[in-house]
């Protein structure tokens, strides 16, 4: 079932290449919808079942290398997989009018879906790594071939080099891990890593790969140019799902496999998470290009996840609250919440750019009265991002902070300053774009069409759902041992 779900877009990609160009978008949509339907069905079944590993597939693959094909749905990946599967058809739908080399475009998108789904479900390093790379290559081409801005080539190359170098470090780390333990399976590895000098180096190598992918400062410099250069549907994938690959990597690899090393390096990780939160907020404060502003806002929000993960490494004995449990659930919910709000916001900024030809914050004004529906959705998603109660972002950030505050009060206290800065730059953005006098040239800007509202509705519903009644979604992350 999981394999079918993962490979459906791949089959679509192959068919797209084989069939005439007019069929491309329909095939991509079908592939993505099949994946989404299967994921939704699996999640419902999984939730009502008492079996923690209801969906699990396991086959012998390459015996000489002890490579075992293992995929499963569990507490760690359920929500991110759902997020990815939800955004996939949305992304195809947004690209519906895409007319430039449609075969290449939709085939690359579909390939990327397969890479993302595979990364979230695979539990053996060998095929997990294949998917991890598969998710990268199409993104590179999508930015390079279909990006809008002049510097897209440079942005794509930077993005590619950074992530590939990270991957190389990670591959090296796993090869050594195999030498140490004789296993590639994430499950088997869980209690095989001892604390030694070598394990620490392996830990650092794997950390490097994730560091770039999240990204954490100072390895984030590829991010903003790549987001700014990529076409809107691709940014939605980049920020909504790909940045979650890194966080998910932390949860899948670092937390269960390297608990001792995480404990040793927790302070360092806390420090860099904090640095990224503040740095991201600071960069966003000075930015007027809306896409870049949102990119830095993403940087800042995803770093909260890492803060929560670092908190898992700090001992929590003798506390009245189960800080680790809170932090872990917060991290997973934050991935979900940020994925939704960032995807929605980037979509809206894309629409804005499409209608006005610019995305400079300061050229707008008073759009509230011109396009009320657009403004309403924009406000809701921004407030979700800000962490307004009853919206998804609040529940998630609240959990993370209450978890990390218990174990690392000082760092958390400083990190909440980041929240303040977030509020400042997001509210400034709202103020500049939507309030004040209307600019002449934007008088005739059209409001959201029915189609666009249709795309945004599922995102809005989930944002409210996860904010008002997060229990539905936390039920999955509670399954993590």
């Amino acid at each position, binding site marked *: 079932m999981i394999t079918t779900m993962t490979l459906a877009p791949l089959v679509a990609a192959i068919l797209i290449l084989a069939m005439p160009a007019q069929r491309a978008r329909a095939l991509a949509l079908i592939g993505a919808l099949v994946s989404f339907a299967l994921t939704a069905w699996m999640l419902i079944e999984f939730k009502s079942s008492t079996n923690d590993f209801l969906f699990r597939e396991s086959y012998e693959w390459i015996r*000489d290398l002890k490579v075992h094909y293992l995929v499963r749905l569990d507490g760690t990946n359920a929500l991110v997989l759902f997020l990815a599967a939800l955004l996939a058809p949305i992304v195809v739908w947004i690209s519906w009018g895409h007319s430039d080399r449609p075969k290449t475009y939709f085939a690359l998108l579909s390939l990327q879906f397969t890479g993302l789904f595979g990364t979230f479900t695979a539990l053996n390093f060998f095929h997990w790594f294949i998917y991890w790379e598969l998710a990268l290559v199409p993104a590179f081409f999508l930015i390079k071939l279909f990006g809008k801005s002049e510097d897209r080539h440079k942005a794509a190359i930077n993005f590619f080099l950074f992530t590939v*170098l990270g991957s190389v470090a990670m591959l090296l780390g796993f090869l050594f891990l195999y*030498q140490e333990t004789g296993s590639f399976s994430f499950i088997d590895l869980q209690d095989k890593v001892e604390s030694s000098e070598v394990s620490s180096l392996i830990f650092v190598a794997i950390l490097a790969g994730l560091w770039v992918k999240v990204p954490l400062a100072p390895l984030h410099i590829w991010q903003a140019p790549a987001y700014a250069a990529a076409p809107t549907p691709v940014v939605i994938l980049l920020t909504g799902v790909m940045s979650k690959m890194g966080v998910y990597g932390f949860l899948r690899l670092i937390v269960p496999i390297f608990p001792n090393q995480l404990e040793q390096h927790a302070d360092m990780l806390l420090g860099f998470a904090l640095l990224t939160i503040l740095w991201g907020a600071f960069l966003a404060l000075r930015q007027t290009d809306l896409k870049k502003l949102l990119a830095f806002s993403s940087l800042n929000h995803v770093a909260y996840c890492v803060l929560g993960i670092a908190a898992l490494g700090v001992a929590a004995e003798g506390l009245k609250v189960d800080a680790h449990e809170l932090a872990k659930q917060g991290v997973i919910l934050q991935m979900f919440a940020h994925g939704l709000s960032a995807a929605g916001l980037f979509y809206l900024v894309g629409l804005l750019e499409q209608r006005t030809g610019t995305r400079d914050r300061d050229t707008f004004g008073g759009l509230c009265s011109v396009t009320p529906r657009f403004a309403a959705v924009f406000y809701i998603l921004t407030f979700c991002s800000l962490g307004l109660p009853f919206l998804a972002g609040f529940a998630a950030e609240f959990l993370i902070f209450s978890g990390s505050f218990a174990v690392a009060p000082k760092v958390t206290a400083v990190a909440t300053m980041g929240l303040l800065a977030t509020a400042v730059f997001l509210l400034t953005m709202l103020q500049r774009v939507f309030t004040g006098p209307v600019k002449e040239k934007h008088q005739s800007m059209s409001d959201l069409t029915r189609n666009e509202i249709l795309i945004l509705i599922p995102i809005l519903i989930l944002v409210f759902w996860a904010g008002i009644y997060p229990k539905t979604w936390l039920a999955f992350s509670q399954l993590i041992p």
Partner: protein
Amino acid sequence: MDLDFQKLLLTLLPDLVVVVALFAALGVDYSRLRGAALAKRYETAYRISALGLFAGLVMAVLQACGKMCVMDAAATAGQLKLTTNTLTLKTALFALALAVLPLAKRDLVTTHASEYFALILLATLGMGFVVTSQNLLGAFVALELVSLSLYAMTALNQSRAASGEAALKYLTFGAVSSGFLLFGLSYLYGATGELNLANLPQLESTSLLIAAYLLIFVGLGFKLALAPFHLWAPDVYQAAPTPVAGWIGSGSKIAAAALLLVLLQPVANSPELKKALVLALAALAVASMLVGNLGALRQTNLKRLLAYSAIANAGYLLVGVLAFDSPITDKANGNQSVLFYILVYSIASLGAFAVISVLADRLGRDAEISDFNGCWKAIPGLSIAFMIFLLSMAGIPPLAGFLGKFYLFLAAISALPEAASLDQGFYWLIAFALMMSVVSLYYYLRVLKAFLVVTDEDGEAKQVPVGIADRISIFALAAIIVALGLWPEPLLGLLQN
């Protein structure tokens, strides 16, 4: 010692069939087809050689499966070592040669039709003997048979001056390196008094033996196109007829790599000697990866680019060779990984040359990368096959090249002494190899960009007639690359010694 000649005849039947086909092709060409049209002569020679090679292949497969009589090493007076492992390599070589033959008849580069095919068969025979030989001299003679055939083939295209020049370069470099190799082997013989590789005693770390092995590395380094013995490769790849370049880049590499592994086996029991040699191998590996990858970056000629990529790949290969003494355990095994890698690489390389041969030989000049602009529109099937070959060479999953590289590096790591001490071992080498693989992506993608992305106005002109045999061989090679990437177990099992 008495040899059982009847049994020997049966054991060598696959080779004998090929020899018969070779002479038949020559004989028919010289007698009945004297004065016939060139195309007809090519066609006849091709048919006879393909038939003979196919029969030889079938018998070799039967032998590898144990369905046909095979003598063990002792019965051949220590000359031949016919195990599943070596017979698999021989079978693979015959099969690859069978893929070369249809390409050779596409372009009528020379009037010596039957000699062309006879030389391909001779080279194949030689390679078969290199991988199955257990005797120092036997292996050397077989390797010379390969080399001489390849020198002659490089010069076949007499209408091109560059072809002759490249062949002369190849011959002079090659002859000198053969001298080095023979010199090294004679030292080895002098130190041990033994020609049979299975009987070599435990080697001690004497300067004589170190010199012997260094000389052997020079000799085989030339055949494998390792830097700094690579200077011939770009010229030869560029100027030789494309099928010949393909065969130089695949078959001869398999033979040389297998021989290198066999020659290194006796060293495994002598830690002192090993320590000295491993350094030399590591230096060669670094040099090759550096020269190959950096050299390839600025090539505009596709065949030259492939030559540099071959140099780089030989460098990766040596990283695995460093693990030649790893015991057969549950973890990765050095020899197995090297053989797997070189086979996969050869298949991909031959495939790439096959596509070039189909597309470029009608140009009548050297193929630049830009000549392939927009091929995707005109010939989507071949473009996809080419993409598979190139991505496999670059090591992109899930193709066989990725698995080969993965396994190779894994073996190199597993072979190191317990990883407790980080200052020992070749961690840096593996890290370097991985970085270089990233660099290599750049030039592979540049070629693929021309094929798949760049559009070209005269797209229709690129329509080329592709013969059915070419089509089958190219698609078979591509299918093998994909299949081995997903399901390598059978081949890995066969290559276990």
